């Protein structure tokens, strides 16, 4: 264990010198490729957006929806519509005033099929949005909504920066975004750093004097930078660094986002359409053994984390059973030649795609490859960048296997991932039983029923094995104790960042 006395010396020096508030410097593995809330797919983007943009509503510190851009609102008696008056005096970062048109535009852009927004599902409950005045608007819902404010936290975009609601993913906005949020973009440099400065025009007080995102691809260097006091926050600490940071009294660990799990997704268009092959793969992979070199976590049997109210503890883990797996493969016409399974002269080989910025991912891939190799299956990993990932996994579904992880907010809504019509269901999993359960779970208002339905869905999905469910890793953010009033939102991280301050 390295001696970690250094920060204290530095801290003393830093304190002596610091009279003015400094910006918050935090590290991400990679700079976001896009800062456009219409096309958010990963957490790095979501976190930056939290600083730049506002929603109609936001989470209070006790995680209750409270008005943000909204001044006042009224939900109709039949709960099928809602009128909203926007806060006055809110301006975009370019000085233009926020208007009801902006909100209407945002909703329409998210709904526009040409835009193909990854967030479209979040406004599907709204049938129409119309501006009734410069700062007032009216939303109509598809059905009765008990508390629509809970669903209105998506970020609002400036209409005047776009030419229409059909928006391209590569629209120039993505690197020159403006919002109404507490911080505005000062620079987006080629070296992957994003500098945000305090928005002095913000309608509420902003204590934090700006924020700087540093792209630091090397996770170990990230942890070192925090210890060296060159950063104030790490959004995700890898398990390996936990002990070092825990021992450092200048750093506080925030256990924050735990609703995320890793999986090996199987493309149902190919060989994985066959449930026996899916079972065989699942049985060949020893999840506990995979987990060991990467850190502490809990293995899961389905699409929820163990602490989830929807996790079905009665679902048994598929036992690691290479013998049965072999039998299954043999029934599919493969023969074992001593080292490989072969069919029609071709060895059983799969391409596994992984995003190359995932440090943990590489370790997992190496371990999976080692395991499958023991049972005669060749795995050809391909580490690809984010752009190629979007294209090959999301768009053209050109893969046999993928390794990735999903992160959910506290609702743990798996509809988009596992419903046959889900927008994030890129493995192509389709099951009528699961579809029915997920649909019912979306509409029911009885918490007991919802829990029961989703627990059943857990069971049904586990039985189908559309992917190999791996684990949830213990997640911690690390924040320097120089940051005052730090509180971390369990999903978006920076929701309350305007109240933070750095000594």
């Amino acid at each position, binding site marked *: 264990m390295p001696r970690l006395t250094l920060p204290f010396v530095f801290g003393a020096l830093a304190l002596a010198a610091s009279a003015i508030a400094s910006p918050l410097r935090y590290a991400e593995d990679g700079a976001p490729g896009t800062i456009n809330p219409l096309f958010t797919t990963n957490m790095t983007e979501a976190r930056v957006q939290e600083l730049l943009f506002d929603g109609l509503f936001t989470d209070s510190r006790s995680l209750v929806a409270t008005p943000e851009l909204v001044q006042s609102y009224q939900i109709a008696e039949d709960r099928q519509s809602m009128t909203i008056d926007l806060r006055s005096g809110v301006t975009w970062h370019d000085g233009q005033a926020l208007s009801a048109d902006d909100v209407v535009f945002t909703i329409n852009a998210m709904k526009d099929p040409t835009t193909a927004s990854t967030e479209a599902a979040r406004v599907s409950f709204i049938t129409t949005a119309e501006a009734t005045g410069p700062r007032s608007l009216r939303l109509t819902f598809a059905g009765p909504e008990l508390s629509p404010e809970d669903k209105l936290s998506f970020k609002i975009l400036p209409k005047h920066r776009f030419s229409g609601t059909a928006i391209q993913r590569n629209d120039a906005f993505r690197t020159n975004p403006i919002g109404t949020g507490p911080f505005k973009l000062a620079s987006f440099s080629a070296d992957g750093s994003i500098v945000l400065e305090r928005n002095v025009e913000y309608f509420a007080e902003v204590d934090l004097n700006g924020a700087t995102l540093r792209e630091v691809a*090397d996770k*170990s260097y990230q942890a*070192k930078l925090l210890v060296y006091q060159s950063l104030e926050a790490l959004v995700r600490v890898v398990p390996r660094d936990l002990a070092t940071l825990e021992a450092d009294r200048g750093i506080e660990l925030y256990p924050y986002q735990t609703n995320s799990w890793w999986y090996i997704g199987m493309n149902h268009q190919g060989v994985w359409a066959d449930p026996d092959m899916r079972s065989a793969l699942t049985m060949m992979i020893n999840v506990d*053994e995979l987990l060991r070199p990467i850190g502490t976590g809990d293995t899961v049997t389905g699409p929820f984390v163990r602490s989830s109210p929807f996790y079905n503890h009665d679902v048994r883990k598929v036992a690691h059973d290479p013998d049965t797996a072999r039998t299954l493969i043999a029934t599919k016409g493969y023969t074992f030649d001593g080292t490989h399974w072969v069919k029609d002269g071709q060895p059983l080989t799969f391409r596994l795609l992984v995003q190359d910025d995932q440090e943990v991912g*590489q*370790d997992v891939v*190496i*371990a999976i*490859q080692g395991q499958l*190799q023991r049972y005669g299956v060749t795995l050809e990993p391909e580490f690809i960048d984010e752009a190629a990932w979007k294209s090959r996994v999301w768009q053209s579904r050109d893969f046999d296997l993928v390794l990735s992880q999903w992160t959910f907010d506290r609702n743990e809504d798996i509809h988009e991932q596992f419903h046959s019509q889900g927008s994030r269901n890129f493995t192509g999993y389709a099951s009528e039983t699961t579809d029915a359960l997920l649909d019912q779970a979306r509409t029911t208002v009885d918490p007991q029923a919802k829990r029961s339905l989703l627990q059943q869905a857990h069971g049904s999905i586990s039985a189908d094995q559309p992917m190999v469910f791996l684990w949830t890793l213990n997640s911690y953010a690390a924040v320097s104790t120089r940051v005052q009033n730090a509180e971390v939102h369990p999903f978006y991280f920076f929701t309350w960042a305007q109240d933070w301050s750095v000594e």
Partner: protein
Amino acid sequence: MKRRAAIASLVVVLLVALIGTLMPDMAATETRPDQANLGMSWAFWLGTDRHGRAIATRLVIGLSNGVWPAVGACTVAGVLGLVAGTARGWLGGLTNTVLGFLTTVLATMPRYVLVLVVLTIWGDSALWLALAAGLAWTPSVTEAVSARVERLRHSETILASRLHGVPTWRLLLVHTVWFGCRKTVTRQLLGLFSAFLVLEASLAYIGGLGIREPTPSIGNLLAMQWGRGAWSDPRFWVPAAVLLFIVAATRALAHQLVEPADV
């Protein structure tokens, strides 16, 4: 003596690479979760990484994964460079001007830039790496050969042989290329050989380009241990030392290979 040591070192490197080639690929990717992060022992000479893969095995196979593409790159640069260089030096005139110009064009492109562009466009693989590096190093081989051939063409030995009726092809192949240029070419190619290994290591270390995990290479063996607070770890130092050793040996040997007339 120094020369013999250098040659012997390189022969050892090639032998090790040969052993690596003969070993099954699976030996490098075989994981042993219960034997992770072991120190040096008889079973694992250089210990194991955090997946329990044997570092020594990976190093040997990694060396072969680097050495053969390096040899490939040398072949590309050697053949292209020799042909173009000899043509330039021997024929002179328009051929010299045109080929010389093309060489200059190629040499204008920084080598790393050329390799980087080729790799990112055509994909990560040892094959493209070898082709790109071979192409990028062709100009320097061409220059060296053509300068040498031109000088030899006017040398007294060649003139005398020509007067004695030695056929042109023989003059060209035996006297000029074989006796006249082999040291020059070997020196250039030795430079490329070590530069290739350094290139591979640099790409793997910086951006995971080139030969990628889980296929072992010296570069990704280094990258695996990088930044883990273990920069004094032998698992980092041994691959680094192997790389340095090859660089030093090739340089030492290249230093000895001076054509008599060059001095």
